[in-house]
């Protein structure tokens, strides 16, 4: 255990000093996006992977977090560098999560998933139509407070670390066991005396909080949001699920692995590094660029059919199987009558 903690601490320090040596803004931007998606994947994973409540509407919390920050800046309630806004964005998102959870947890399974999707669409429509508050479909522009990417890098690294530690602590506490019990068999959990509605709500609150923080950070970092971006079903809600499933749902490190692959793939689609000699280079680049969701859709289908446990989950399974096989061999080799 201590060895693992030291290793993790070393890795964290290693990541933290990266901006001191890397001044390439493109690489820093990629890393910021990886951390952002790891944060989103982790948040979704707590509710969807560990608690088994698959949400198709997490863009609701992302959008609420982003708009909380944006509205504070716009209305002059906060100075330009509103870093405490991250916290506020998370809190407002959690508040919205409490309301959505109160409504949606009346339903189970896929019906829960879809009802939360419906409510996130309602929030998007409100953001489009409530022009005085949100500036409507025009969106809100904001000049980022820091010029250097390094500042954002450290902020998002800190947030991702906090969320990782929080979720790990939660999953090691009694809450975590309740969450797993609810995922495995809700009726059984209820009959054992777990107030399932209450614990599903706790899981949603934590998940919505970190998603809101991520949305808030996105607003501060990108400097522009509109309802179509931050409340997007296909670009936020579905991609949070993709990131988690790619890495491995219900694993601690899965979302981070998924985030690395997702950001790399998005970059490949956005700016495909095709050699100059390839025929129809422009056409292929255009196809990849405009068809990125098409390929992500195929990726979702392939993952579900062939790697239902994701990368980390599949590797873990292989490792466990190998251990079992070795243990079996050892037992077979042992003299009879002893085992």
């Amino acid at each position: 255990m201590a060895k693992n903690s030291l290793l993790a601490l070393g890795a964290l320090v290693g990541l933290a000093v990266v901006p001191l040596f890397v001044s390439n803004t493109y690489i820093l931007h990629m890393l910021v996006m990886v951390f952002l998606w790891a944060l989103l994947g982790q948040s979704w994973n707590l509710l969807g992977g560990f608690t088994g409540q698959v949400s198709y509407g997490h863009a609701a919390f992302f959008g609420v977090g982003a708009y909380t920050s944006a509205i504070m800046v716009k209305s002059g309630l906060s100075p330009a560098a509103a870093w405490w806004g991250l916290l506020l964005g998370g809190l407002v998102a959690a508040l919205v999560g409490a309301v959505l959870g109160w409504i949606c947890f009346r339903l189970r399974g896929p019906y829960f998933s879809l009802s939360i999707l419906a409510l996130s669409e309602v929030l998007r429509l409100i953001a489009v139509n409530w022009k005085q508050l949100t500036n409507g479909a025009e969106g809100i522009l904001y000049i980022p407070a820091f010029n250097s990417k390094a500042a954002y890098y450290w902020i998002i690294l800190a947030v991702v670390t906090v969320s990782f530690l929080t979720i790990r602590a939660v999953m090691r506490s009694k809450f975590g066991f309740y969450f797993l019990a609810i995922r495995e068999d809700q009726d059984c959990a209820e009959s054992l005396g777990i107030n399932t509605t209450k614990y599903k709500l706790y899981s949603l609150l934590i998940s919505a909080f970190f998603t809101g923080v991520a949305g808030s950070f996105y607003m501060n970092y990108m400097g522009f949001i509109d309802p179509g971006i931050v409340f997007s079903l296909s670009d936020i809600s579905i991609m949070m699920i993709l990131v988690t499933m790619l890495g491995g749902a219900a694993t601690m490190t899965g979302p981070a692995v998924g985030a690395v692959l997702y950001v790399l793939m998005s970059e490949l689609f956005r700016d495909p590094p095709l050699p100059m000699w390839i025929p129809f280079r422009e056409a292929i680049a255009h196809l990849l660029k405009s068809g990125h969701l098409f390929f992500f859709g195929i990726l979702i289908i392939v993952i579900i059919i062939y790697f239902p446990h994701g990368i980390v989950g599949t590797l873990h399974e292989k490792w466990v199987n190998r251990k079992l096989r070795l243990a079996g061999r050892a037992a077979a080799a042992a003299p009879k009558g002893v085992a």
Partner: protein
Amino acid sequence: MSPQVAGQIELLGQVLISGILLGGLYALIGLGMSLIMGVMKIINLAHGELMMVAMYGTYWMFTLAKVDPYVSLLVVCPAMFLLGVAIQKFLITPVMNADSVLPQNQVLLTVGIGLVLSNLALLLFSANYRSVPVSYASKTIYWDVKMGGQTVSLSFSYPFLVAFAIAVSLGVALFLFLGMTDTGRMIRATAQDKRAASLMGINTKRITYITFGLGAALVGAAGALLDPVYYLYPQIGGPFTSKAFVITVLGGLGNIPGAILGGLVLGLAESLGSVYISLGYKDAFGFIIFVLVLIFLPRGLLGKGRA
């Protein structure tokens, strides 16, 4: 009666008429989803995208061969049936019993299918809005009602009327099919209890293929009927998937007559809300009713659905 009151009555009548006509089409969309949900217990999140595929099929048949959208139903529905069977057979059935951490892999799979379909359409046909310019697109039939000395003139859009009539006949045909034929009985038996149905010698796998095919064919019909009165673009499916889901929840999950009622209620809510409250929130009214039903009538409007 003063002319102002007559005007108000005219507006209300008009809103109710367009709501009901629209509701007929919505019911057709909801029926397909309700059928699939009843038999397979999964929500088909590619439902609107299937409709989009049918809409493009109808569009190209009209543009290239001048086939009337109502005639093209005869081609579009069987083609959508086959597409539905293929999706069920090659994509959904393999993961139906797969072991996985997430309980709803099949539903996520339909999300993936929907993304693939809509973005394939985007790649092939570009994001342009298109419409099917049939000669009768803006033809209307007027109905004058004498009321307290004033004349209230109500108009019925011709393509909407035809669409409504076809939707109703397809609904009745589905009802008869489920109630009177052997295959229909097998579908209902599978929906009630899959294991018991397979013990009674029903090939439930085949039934799931047929069900998904039927659902796709129904939503395909809705797409073809919607073509003359609506515009189409690759991302049109998403909002209709949510509408279909709202309809099925309103009607009670997996309840076929309920789906028809749900469609009518949604159509009325949208048209009343957009005239009397706000046009910008047109798509939100369905969701708001949906949330109210979830809170107060979790078993659907008819109270017979599975909660």
